[in-house]
């Protein structure tokens, strides 16, 4: 029981991170039907910005809580700017081209950004000041660290904020309209370019938050850290039904849980196999994911 409880705690933490990254994939996909390969790199950039800002603010003598909060906000802003730039440079000119061309451009940007991070930040891991958040508490025999609490807390907070933004505000309405039909929404006066930019920015902000929390949790960041979570989060987005925000959250949580439980009870070396097999099985019976809508037949 203790064992299960501990694994569940681990799974929720991991799932929360996947969910935050998966949201970026799903939002971008929902609006321009692009698998944004560069998203994992935005997440890595967020991790780096976090460590850069935290160590600078810390050296200026701010208290830890202020450092953390300010770094979180600033890094989210930075990544939003970065993602908007990437969108302008690499995706927008290709909006009329075939979707695979954009996919390839995204792949190129991913390699470009990853190596850009390597060139400016070096090949060595960068240490996070893990001593800022220490300790934890016991809960029914399972150890829960404060860092895990923060991860889950910030994730929930951001998810609630995102839901409010998308479903309760005018901007959110515009985003949903653009995702449904770009031409029609443009006709009723929505600036679709601006909405697309905004979508990229929001997705990137969430990824940046995930990057910082992962850095604090695991103690370090590296320029290629975006790749593995990127693939996992993409799977999560598809599992939940790509294009669907609630689906992405659910998908992230499920993938995180499967991984941890498979590693805990079956075999740690085949845990990714289990994650993918379940993904394939779900898609076989629900070809559009758990919460996805029917995709137009003619799309390739």
């Amino acid at each position, binding site marked *: 029981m203790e064992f299960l409880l501990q694994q569940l705690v681990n799974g929720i933490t991991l799932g929360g991170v996947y969910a935050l990254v998966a949201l970026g994939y799903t939002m971008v996909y929902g609006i321009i039907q692009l698998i944004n390969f560069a998203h994992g790199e935005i997440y890595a950039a967020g991790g780096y910005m976090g460590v850069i800002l935290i160590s600078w603010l810390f050296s200026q003598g701010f208290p830890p809580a202020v450092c953390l909060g300010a770094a979180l906000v600033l890094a989210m802003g930075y990544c939003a700017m970065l993602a908007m730039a990437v969108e302008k*440079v690499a995706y927008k000119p290709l909006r009329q081209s075939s979707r695979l061309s954009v996919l390839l451009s995204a792949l190129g940007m991913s390699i470009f950004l990853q190596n850009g991070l390597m060139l400016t930040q070096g090949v060595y891991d960068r240490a996070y000041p893990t001593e800022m958040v220490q300790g934890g508490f016991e809960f029914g025999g399972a150890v829960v660290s404060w860092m895990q609490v923060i991860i889950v807390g910030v994730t929930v907070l951001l998810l609630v904020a995102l839901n409010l933004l998308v479903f309760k505000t005018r901007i959110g309405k515009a985003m949903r309209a653009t995702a449904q039909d770009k031409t029609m929404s443009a006709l009723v006066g929505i600036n679709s370019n601006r909405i697309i930019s905004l979508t990229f920015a929001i997705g990137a902000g969430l990824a940046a938050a995930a990057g910082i929390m992962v850095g604090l949790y695991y*103690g*370090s960041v590296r320029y290629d850290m975006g790749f593995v979570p990127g693939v996992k989060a993409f799977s999560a987005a598809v599992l939940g039904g790509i294009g669907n925000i609630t689906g992405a959250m659910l998908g992230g949580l499920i993938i995180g849980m499967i991984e941890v439980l498979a590693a*805990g009870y079956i075999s740690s070396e085949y845990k990714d196999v289990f994650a993918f097999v379940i993904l394939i099985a779900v898609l076989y019976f629900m070809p559009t994911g758990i919460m996805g809508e029917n995709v137009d037949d003619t799309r390739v």
Partner: protein
Amino acid sequence: MKRALYLISMLLLASFVAVGCGGEKKEDKKAEAPKAGLKIGSLGPLTGQYAADGNDIKNGVLAAIEVMNPEMGALGPVTLQAEDDACDPRQAVAAANKLINEKVTAVIGAYCSSATIPASEPLIAAKIFMITPASTNEKVTERGMPYMYRTCGRDDDQSKAAVKFMAEQLKAKAIYIVDDKTTYSQGLADNVEKLAPGANLKVLGHEHVNQGDKDYSAVLTKVKAAKPDVFYVSLQNSASAAPMLIQIARMGIKTKILAQDAVYHPQLMELAKKDAEGVFLTFGYTDKETPAYKKFAEAYKKFGEPGAYSAYSYDSTVAYLKAVKAAGSTDPEKVKAELAKLEFDGASKKIKYKENGDSGSNYVIQVVKDGKFTNYWNPETGELFK
């Protein structure tokens, strides 16, 4: 306006390329200045997941060249051609062929055993010396390759030292093993598992994690439940070991931890901080007080702290250059004869290559104490270091 923005962003990309070219040219000039002389190559992952270790190797070679250059006389000056293999067998072979084309006479590298083995085929066939400072897999030297040498130790020796330490010094009864599925880390872990029953150690479990994973919580929960006396951690490098140590501490696992030589890197303490304290590791014995080590440390200073394989790569280069100097030429047969005779005090250990190219292992147990790697126990004598 839109068009303009688009255009500019394009230009930005193009200019990045231009900047890249600019940087490149400058380096070229530096490299071209000394004409002729001796050219050696280095092979290692300069990009990708293990880029840090690859750069350590390259820097070790550079330091050695700087030290040896004044001594080389008419044979010099020595220049380096550093190639990237990204730890990918295909790229390693391509890089090896490139080095053959560039007419290098020796290659220091590679890092991953899975890159060293395929790259050695064309190199040895072209009669180019290959001295690996880091590939500890037994097969590297056991294929009867005439020009293949190894400066670091071997996995089988290292696992013996580890098992001996756990049984005799730590008086452990039950151990738990984790590796991250590379030729190196799994090879070591498997050896330990095989040797453990002979030393009355019970293996409670042997788990594998995937490379690139940072979340070990599921495996660690299992370890915690199993309550071993010693937790044997075999990971490919320090960057993956640091998050492991942090999570071990966070989980409240209090067992002793034994790691291996790949984890030896100053960044371990930088990343894991106080969570690295008290971790044991097997590592080739290096006396940091010898003149040879101090000379190395001096030459290496400008690259930062030496990593796990910096001293080995330095010694590999020095050994080759000494042999060339003694032979008076780069003729492979003469150099091979000299390498067989060669014996000197290297930075890492006493260098003496055996018939098959191995240089022997001298693993000791180190411990992380006050943020520093300190020698702890000598398996040869079974005694603690003072």
